[in-house]
């Protein structure tokens, strides 16, 4: 007895294979369609890791989960959460690239200093603001959020400010001028104590915290109205040489160690501060909560106070850098724009939303009124930070050349601190780098 073999022809094989692939695709698409978070009613919401559902802080995650679920229930929309890489600059670069190719998420958070470069890609959202008044924002935040055409382009929801921290048990009156700072530092100089620290590595903090406040307080400008770099010309050049020379003097006098070139971010100084061997340092408001955790809240508050970043002349003439984060809204669909802004207001921008998020994260609100909201919980230094935001803060220029300027000046500071170049030589190289 023979068993007839069933031979599958090539054509049958291809038909079967094709049907299988088509079936798989169909099932896949049905599966995708079933996901509420990627359908038409989903808002793709992108945040950096610390501001997302993947944040290491459970309080933040809980706040976000509650805000998202309650808004989803009331709006009928779903939030599709996306997270960027932890390298913020790289994440912003990729978002810019996506936005320029119409592939940006519906809502994404953007570092405030880079937000003006998104003006051409974000949607105007002034019509959806409701009771949120633009005049309530600090002037520097208003400047970032509003394009040249007067349209509201984004919603800033956190801000920050750079200050000088000093030890009250060592320094009774904080220095306000460079001469006072050098004098105070030299009086404190010993093997056990490092008088003055600031970031001088290859990152944004080197310019925003350690250079621009000195430069701006002398009236220096990085760019002209067209965005052309002018920091190496005329009075700006003089202001920049003065600033770099002061940094050089801090190192030469011994009050600042050369190892500050290792510190790329303000938080890199936390170890030195916690060791108890630092008398003064330039840092950001966001370090308060971190240092309280490291040193102990009571000890930190009893030992440390904040003052304006010293300026060349001192007195009331100070400047500092403000930053923060802005939400950009990208979809062309007006309903989605409205829904997106509604979510942002609920979770981050309304009085309660901003107070809630800034309290949880330890951020400063960019809206004056939020400081008065009962639910807003600042810290012992919040009033001083608020005063600095009002009196001294300014933004980095919105020019397209800013990234080149920042990199060139980071290098200049590094060269001066490491004695690789004089202030004049370092500035000359920076000017040539930017103009080349």
């Amino acid at each position, binding site marked *: 007895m023979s068993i007839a073999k069933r031979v599958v022809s090539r054509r049958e094989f291809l038909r079967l294979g094709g049907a299988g692939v088509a079936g798989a695709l169909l099932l896949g698409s049905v599966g995708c369609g079933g996901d509420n978070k990627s359908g038409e009613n989903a808002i793709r919401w992108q945040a950096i890791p610390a501001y997302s559902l993947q944040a290491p802080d459970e309080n933040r995650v809980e706040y976000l989960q509650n805000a998202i679920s309650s808004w989803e229930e009331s709006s009928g929309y779903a939030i599709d959460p996306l997270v960027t890489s932890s*390298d913020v600059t790289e994440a912003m670069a990729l978002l810019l690239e996506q*936005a320029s190719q119409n592939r940006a998420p519906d809502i994404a958070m953007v570092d405030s200093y880079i937000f003006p470069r998104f003006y051409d890609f974000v949607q105007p959202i002034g019509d959806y603001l409701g009771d949120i008044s633009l005049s309530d924002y600090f002037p520097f935040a208003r400047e970032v959020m509003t394009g040249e055409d007067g349209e509201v382009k984004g919603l800033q929801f956190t801000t920050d400010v750079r200050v000088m921290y000093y030890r009250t048990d060592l320094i009774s009156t904080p220095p306000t001028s460079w001469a006072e700072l050098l004098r105070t530092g030299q009086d404190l100089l010993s093997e056990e104590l490092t008088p003055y620290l600031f970031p001088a590595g290859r990152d944004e903090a080197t310019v925003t915290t350690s250079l621009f406040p000195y430069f701006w307080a002398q009236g220096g400008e990085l760019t002209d109205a067209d965005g052309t770099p002018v920091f190496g010309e005329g009075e700006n050049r003089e202001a920049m040489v003065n600033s770099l020379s002061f940094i050089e003097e801090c190192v030469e006098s011994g009050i600042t160690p050369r190892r500050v070139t290792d510190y790329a971010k303000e938080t890199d100084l936390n170890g030195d501060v916690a060791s108890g061997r630092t008398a003064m340092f330039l840092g950001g408001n966001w370090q308060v909560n971190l240092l309280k955790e490291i040193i102990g809240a009571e000890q930190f508050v009893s030992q440390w106070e904040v003052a304006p970043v010293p300026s060349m002349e001192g007195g009331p003439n100070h400047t500092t850098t403000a930053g923060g984060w802005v939400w950009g809204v990208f979809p062309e669909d007006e309903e989605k724009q409205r829904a997106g802004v509604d979510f942002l207001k609920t979770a981050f921008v309304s009085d309660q939303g901003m107070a809630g998020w800034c309290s949880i994260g330890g951020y400063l609100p960019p809206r004056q009124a939020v400081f008065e909201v009962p639910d807003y919980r600042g810290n012992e230094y919040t009033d001083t930070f608020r005063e600095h935001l009002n009196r001294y803060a300014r933004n980095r220029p919105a020019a397209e050349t800013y990234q*080149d300027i920042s990199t060139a000046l980071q290098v200049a500071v590094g060269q001066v*601190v*490491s004695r690789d170049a004089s202030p004049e030589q370092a500035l000359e190289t920076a000017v040539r780098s930017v103009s080349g």
Partner: protein
Amino acid sequence: MLSEKKIAGRRTWSETITDSPSPWLFPLGIILGATFLYPIFEIARLSFTNAGLIGGGYSYTFESYLSLLQSPNFANMLKVTAMFVSFSVVFQMLFGFLIALLVDQGAKRGLRVSMVTRTAVLSAWAIPGVIIGIIWSILYEQSAAGILNYVLSSPGQTIPFLSDPQLALASVTVANIWRGTAFSMILVYAGLQTLPSDVMEAAKVDGANAWQRLFRVMLPLLAPILFIDLVVVSIETFNTFDMVLALTGGGPGRSTEVVALSIYNQIFRQFNLGQGAATAVLLLTINIVVTFVYIRFLEGNQEVR
């Protein structure tokens, strides 16, 4: 008659296709073209533009190459890269060879420590570059908490491992040698396992001492492996940026900014896609030239022999 011819023709066509390797290589060709050749083409094309990372319009120009060549940092970047690569390659190969010899001799003598050594060295290779950068930054820490400073420096004095421009480059190179030695060791160790034992024994019987056996017998036999090691380690070191980024970010100033890191900075920090692409083409050219020089050198040596 006609239908028979048709059938014969069809058979010939299908047989031709079946017998040819082309259909089987076609998918691989598509994948290689899409993932390897097309990106290279795109980088080369973008290098002749003034494109930024944010998109928008761009035009074709030589400006990216001109500004790269006229940049005040260009010569320094090449010098830093040359020193970083040459010292890294020489010492990675040297240490890799020595460790492989020790591990091989230990294994032949049945010492367990050789397996431990092999595993320990390999673990360095398995650690991502960014983590290595962080580990070495802790070792190089210049404050009182620094491990190497605690061991090496005198009280009150610290060694500026990462804040002195010259020392920073040396420190980064040492960290890279530590990272890359494992790869050389693996290759050489594998090569040592393939050495014909009769040849080695014959040399011994003929009275060759250990040095003579090493230089006259072992090294010539290992030459192809060492050549592959040289090429791979050189290219890998030229392309290294992750560890340098984590360790110094290219600083202080630009004293440790190698070409690969400069590409990253130009594209992702300064959004300058055109000039970043031009620098990438420069790096690709350097890699090709170096490999070509190595091949010519090896061919020359073989002809002499």
